[in-house]
């Protein structure tokens, strides 16, 4: 049995923290090998070691039977290892062709010869059915096509070992399916693929074998076809996890948030980021806005909460017109916002936990007197939140938020927002980048809000989340709501068609 990659007993230490502890990882030639683990399990670190970004303290790397020293990404490239990063590394004002040949330009007497390169690229594109338009600019093409460009770039360099770092996070279900086909095609050609993911469905669909990491340790390598999803998730998390959220029936009450004809223009163009959007969120329901990233979801929420100005339309909270109210007023009237970017909006990273816990309430009489902060009350309050919401951090209420883990940072935001007893919670991708356990917890919290008769507006890119949590789905496409769907009646692939803009609800015809 021949291995193309053998990483034996890799140990990588940051300061005093072991990011990888004696991890052994072997990939056979011509297989899709999945690398499964929660965030922080060491997947990215392991790949960075393979790719030459980090040097391991211990262990050896054997590529094609030869021990190699990989000290930078160029070494990795020379060994025919290529990587599609989670966040694409493309130059936006280059054409597709230019991006693919970047760094490997065909040159004659110092002059770029694009024709030869174009031929090779188009041959590859046809061979692997990776459809691209070589003359389109990167900034104009879809995320799916950008990914195809990245894959072609690896193939153009004749890489034999391809690393895909969470490639499906930004794709629609249809695009994911196509990617799976491409991956299988590549393997047939004799390439080897490392597929980093924490989505078990995808691993089940495409991978041959799967290595599971947990907290920097190698838990096991299993044959995917003979292992169930439940077994793999147990290996990943270390305990049993329930995938389905129990949804009880609730009584849907009157509207809490009413959005009417909301229009938001992009800052430097006339394009409408949000175009004439109207919807309600009622008591006792979770309404989910589904859509592919960049279709106006973020702007919609920023507009409702007041972080960016809106051009037209009105927002009502419990029947009160809050369109023009300040962010603080909206807060007081019961709007809570779990922001998309927790580092930019949600937290002040250099403040400690207690100071972050009172971000919107520090001026209330319980926390101040004559403008002087009541530090004891703030501390007590923070302790209460820590206990009630199980926020774990190095130094409890005194920990600087920057030093807390992503999951606990998010827990802190959720604790702070929900503890204000809001009428409506706007949760934007609340589980992004979080592991299974934290995700489960956050879903439970949102459910509890709904069951209490509060309203929840959830913006999500994860289809599983959309289908499992919501009571009603609104699909947003290019700033417009293109359909209202019932999660119990719709399939994932149908939802995908709406999200890709190829289908519209009856009452949501194309506006002139």
């Amino acid at each position: 049995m021949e291995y193309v990659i053998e990483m034996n007993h890799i140990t990588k230490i940051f300061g005093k923290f072991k990011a990888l502890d004696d991890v052994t990882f072997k990939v056979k030639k011509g297989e899709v090998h999945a690398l499964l683990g929660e965030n922080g399990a060491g997947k990215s670190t392991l790949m960075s070691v393979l790719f030459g970004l980090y040097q391991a303290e211990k262990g050896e790397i054997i590529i094609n039977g030869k021990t190699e020293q990989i000290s930078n990404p160029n070494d990795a490239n020379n060994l025919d290892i290529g990587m599609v990063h989670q966040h694409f590394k493309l130059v936006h004002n280059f054409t597709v062709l230019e991006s693919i040949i970047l760094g490997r330009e065909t040159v004659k007497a110092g002059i770029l010869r694009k024709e030869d390169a174009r031929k090779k690229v188009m041959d590859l594109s046809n061979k692997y059915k990776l459809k691209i338009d070589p003359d389109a600019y990167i900034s104009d093409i879809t995320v799916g096509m950008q990914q195809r460009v990245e894959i072609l770039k690896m193939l153009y360099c004749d890489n034999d070992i391809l690393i895909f770092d969470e490639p499906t996070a930004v794709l629609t279900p249809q695009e994911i399916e196509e990617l799976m086909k491409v991956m299988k095609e590549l393997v047939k050609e004799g390439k080897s693929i490392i597929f980093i993911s924490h989505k078990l469905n995808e691993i089940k669909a495409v991978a041959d074998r799967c290595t599971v990491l947990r907290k920097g340790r190698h838990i096991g390598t299993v044959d995917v076809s003979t292992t169930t999803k439940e077994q793999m998730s147990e290996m990943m998390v270390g305990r049993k996890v329930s995938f389905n959220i129990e949804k009880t029936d609730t009584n849907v009450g009157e509207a809490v948030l009413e959005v009417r004809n909301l229009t938001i223009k992009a800052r430097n163009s006339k394009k409408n980021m949000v175009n004439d959007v109207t919807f309600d969120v009622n008591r006792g329901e979770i309404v989910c806005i589904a859509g592919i990233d960049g279709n106006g979801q973020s702007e919609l929420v920023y507009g409702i909460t007041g972080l960016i100005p809106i051009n037209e339309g009105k927002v009502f909270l419990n029947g009160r017109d809050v369109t023009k109210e300040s962010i603080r007023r909206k807060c007081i009237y019961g709007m809570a916002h779990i922001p998309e970017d927790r580092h930019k909006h949600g937290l002040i990273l250099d403040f400690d936990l207690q100071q972050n816990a009172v971000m919107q309430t520090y001026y209330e009489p319980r926390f101040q007197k004559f403008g002087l902060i009541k530090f004891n009350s703030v501390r007590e309050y923070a302790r209460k939140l820590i206990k009630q919401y199980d926020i774990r951090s190095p130094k409890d209420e005194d920990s600087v938020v920057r030093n807390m883990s992503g999951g606990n940072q998010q827990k802190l935001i959720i604790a702070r927002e929900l503890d204000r007893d809001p009428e409506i919670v706007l949760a934007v991708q609340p589980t992004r980048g979080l592991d299974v356990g934290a995700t489960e917890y956050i879903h439970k919290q949102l459910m509890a809000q709904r069951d209490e008769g509060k309203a929840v507006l959830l913006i999500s890119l994860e289809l599983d989340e959309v289908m499992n949590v919501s009571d009603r789905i609104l699909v947003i496409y290019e700033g417009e709501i293109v359909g209202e769907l019932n999660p119990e009646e719709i399939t994932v692939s149908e939802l995908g068609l709406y999200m890709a803009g190829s289908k519209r609800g009856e009452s949501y015809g194309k506006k002139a």
Partner: protein
Amino acid sequence: MEKRRNLQEHKGAISFISSLMAIAAGLIFGLIILFISNSKDALPAFATILTGGFSEGARGIGQVIYFATPIIMTGLSVGFAFKTGLFNIGASGQFTCGAFAAIYIGVKWTFIPAGIHWLAALTGAMAAGAVWGAGPGLLKAFFNVNEVITSIMMNYIGMYLVNMTIVKTVYDALKNQTKPVAKSAVLPKAGLDKLFNTGNLNIGIIIAILAVIIIYVVLHKTTFGYELKACGSNKSASKYAGINEKKSIVFSMVIAGALSGLGGGLLYLSGSGKYLQVLDVLAPEGFSGISVALLGMSHPLGILFAGLFIAHLTVGGFNIQLYNFVPEVIDMIIAVIIYCGAFALMFKQLLNTFMASPVEESSETRENKDNTDNIADEDDEHAEKEESQ
């Protein structure tokens, strides 16, 4: 709990020690310069610099306090703005405007009763500095113009405007400087002059210390300070939390300006025979303020001591003229100290490696354990850190 306290104190000590190391590096550099320019007298001159204000007994200390007062104020101005996320390079212009307002009121407004004339003049100094700080603040808040550029420009506008206005109002043509202020506008001595045996000393230092305390309380104990610091640390998050970030920016520049202006008032009302000269030179106190703030790590108490320390070196710098050295050596030493202060991170890292005690080790491993989830997400950050090391 006890362990945690220890760790915190330990960290404070480490940043204090790294400041000391920066100072040591600066002094060694100064010694080298002295050796290069005149190796024979280098050592005694160096000893003079180190002795600084202590060479003449109480009088020397009084002199240090006199020099320290204005740069503590400008240092406080820069440090306060820095804590709230703004870089106030305009302390010099604010200082000059404050100085002029104080002198103008001191010379012209003799109708004010004697007991409160100096108070009125200081208030005027603060107001003038505040106005000069408000300009960049408003531009930053409402038009997002970088405050560094606008406040530098305001320095020149302030200097030339003050020069022009002096000539038109309180000009002593013979000496090309301002007229002396009325006796009632000179700051009370409160016996400090007798205590330190120098006529230059007055309640200015007490006012400066009061300012240090007030700024400390505002920054660390009030909701207002919380808002300012929140805006300085993360503007977007402050907006999200419903804090009026525009108001905060304007307020912190106004307060910073007022502090610098007050510094100008304190210096020129001290009755030490110092007059505002009509020269095309920016007030150096404003730029010393930047050094003081950096050395004091923008902490009000740190600024107080940094101001005293730099004044101590300055006095030493005057004394080395005895050995035919120029006092500018002191400026070079201070510059190197600031440079090394910028490498404080490096010093801290060194200290952490050498001084890591068992107590700290156990706490840190615990910290790291909890950090587990975080590590992989922050691969880029690690790479950055490693680069900077």
